[in-house]
């Protein structure tokens, strides 16, 4: 079974789907959702630009030391939410507390506790990478030596040592993004806002960014990120809030969201047509594909139903080649929650 598992794993990973490895799919996630003091709380947050309502009363709460993803398509209001929470623009209504400070009365208290990396790179193009980092250190009032030490450390960590003395205007997109995040991390921010941190990055830079985000959280930092990539929220976040036209249409762990909608199934692959026939008879309501030698069995992807399924196959002495669990991905969730897809993409399923 071990080898089959490996195959399933790699296969499913390329498909970007969730794989059953015998453990609960929630493992490693529930840890981050244990309730603690919230790092970000917003109640009834509203914002309009003229007649255009961008945020129509959203409520959210982000536990300290977790990753929270605000997920939604372009124009949903994600950036506006981040801009308000990070004190960049004012709200029309609602209460906000970040790191224990109230936005209305103590915006500077919030500013001292947060780091922000916006969608447009917030770097100084006319300075070098190193000068940008030292500029941050100076504004955070670290001494000269400490500022240089932090700058050097971040240049190393973000693979910018060779480019440290070059003007930022000569940097590539990925380098600018890395410098941008490095500048956010010069201070010891407790809450970090990342507005679409991986938009426009190549896959390798994207994984580097994910790794950095995980390291931050491991260090006790709270990360509030926005993304339009469903797999990114799934990959990183302990909790996801789905934003659509200025309203939160759902909140929960990625798995909670995925379980809320139908469409999940288990795919079984057989060595020969006889196995396929036997399984189809034993399981009843299935969708079969004779050429691919696979069966699709409806399932919520939960451990209990998987065990029941495997027991039935075991009882009928049917040998299964490969097994993979296809919980609905967040694209399905989005469609089910809002009635419209995030993108115009064709659904293969």
């Amino acid at each position: 079974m071990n080898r089959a598992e490996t195959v399933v794993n790699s296969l499913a990973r390329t498909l970007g789907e969730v794989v059953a490895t015998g453990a609960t799919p929630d493992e490693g996630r529930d840890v981050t959702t244990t309730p603690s003091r919230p790092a970000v709380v917003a109640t009834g947050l509203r914002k309009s630009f003229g007649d255009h309502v961008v945020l129509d009363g959203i409520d959210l709460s982000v536990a300290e030391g977790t990753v929270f993803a605000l997920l939604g398509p372009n124009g949903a209001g994600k950036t506006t939410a981040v801009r308000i929470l990070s004190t960049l623009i004012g709200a029309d209504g609602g209460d906000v507390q970040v790191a224990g400070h109230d936005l209305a009365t103590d915006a500077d208290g919030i500013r001292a506790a947060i780091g922000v990396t916006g969608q447009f790179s917030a770097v100084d193009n006319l300075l070098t990478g190193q000068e940008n980092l030292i500029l941050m250190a100076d504004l955070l009032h670290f001494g000269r030596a400490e500022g240089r030490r932090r700058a050097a450390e971040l240049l190393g960590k973000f693979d910018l040592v060779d480019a440290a003395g070059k003007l930022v205007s000569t940097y590539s997109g990925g380098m600018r993004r890395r410098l941008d995040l490095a500048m956010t991390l010069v201070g010891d921010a407790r809450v970090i806002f990342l507005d679409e941190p991986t938009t426009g990055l190549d896959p390798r830079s994207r994984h580097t960014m994910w790794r950095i985000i995980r390291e931050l959280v491991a260090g006790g930092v709270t990360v509030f990120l926005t993304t339009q990539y469903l797999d990114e929220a799934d990959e990183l976040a302990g909790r996801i809030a789905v934003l659509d036209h200025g309203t939160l249409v759902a909140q929960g762990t990625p798995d909670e969201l995925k379980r809320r909608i139908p469409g999940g199934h288990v795919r079984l692959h057989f060595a020969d047509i006889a196995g396929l026939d036997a399984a189809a008879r034993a399981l009843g309501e299935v969708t079969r594909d004779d050429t691919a030698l696979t069966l699709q069995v409806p399932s919520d992807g939960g451990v209990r139903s998987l065990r029941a399924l495997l027991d039935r196959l075991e009882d009928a002495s049917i040998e299964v080649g490969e097994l993979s669990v296809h919980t609905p991905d967040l694209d399905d969730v989005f469609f089910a929650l809002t009635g419209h897809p995030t993108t115009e993409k064709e659904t293969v399923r």
Partner: protein
Amino acid sequence: MSTLTYAVSDSATMVRRNFRQALRYPGTMIMSLAMPVLLLLLFVGVFGGALGMSARGDYIDYVVPGILLMTVGYGATVTALAVNRDMTEGIIARFRTMAIFRVSVLVGHVVGALVRTLTSAVLVVGVALLLGFRPAGGPGGVIAAFGVIALLALALTWLAVAIGLLAKNAEGANLFILVVQVLPFLSSAFVPPDSMSGAVRWFAENEPFTPVIDTVRGLMLGTPVGSSGLIAVAWCVGFALAGYFWARALFRRDPVR
């Protein structure tokens, strides 16, 4: 550290940012320093012959204070454009989300602009001396005149910062450029107002640049300044304060992008 030391420290950081950027583009820097010197050469060499006919002594003695006024005006337009361009940089948004002394971003521009403008003014006077400019007011008069020039530069720079913040793009700052570059011509900067006609003359006698230019000229040439001095200082202080508070209010607005 107290709030005041933070304000000073953050402003110093922003001034360093401004200088570092300026030094990175020496061409632009040299251009903006040399422009007023070119104006001086133009006025003395081209118009000087014709205008020098008036029985007011050497035209160069009359025109240097006017060129210094142009220098300040030109410096202000460079500042307005620089601030306008800087506001489109993403880093400004970052500054706004940091617990820093906010106005320091603007102070960096103002200090940088003052240093640039005054350096340019010193160059103008240096070249004028080589061309035969003989300020009768002596070194003391010239230094006092530079005090007035510095005050005017402070006033126009803060206004320029406000305009740079207000304008949606570089084109939007053009009206200001027009005003600060044309107003000196409608003053006593290049020709005495009594040679102008009716309404233009009334305007030239009462616009803020005229008392400033009369004061600078009086101090440099050792002629009586009269009430112009006080009026000039009042205009400058008024504009500086108005510019500062206007710029500060504009910078506190929610950014558009």
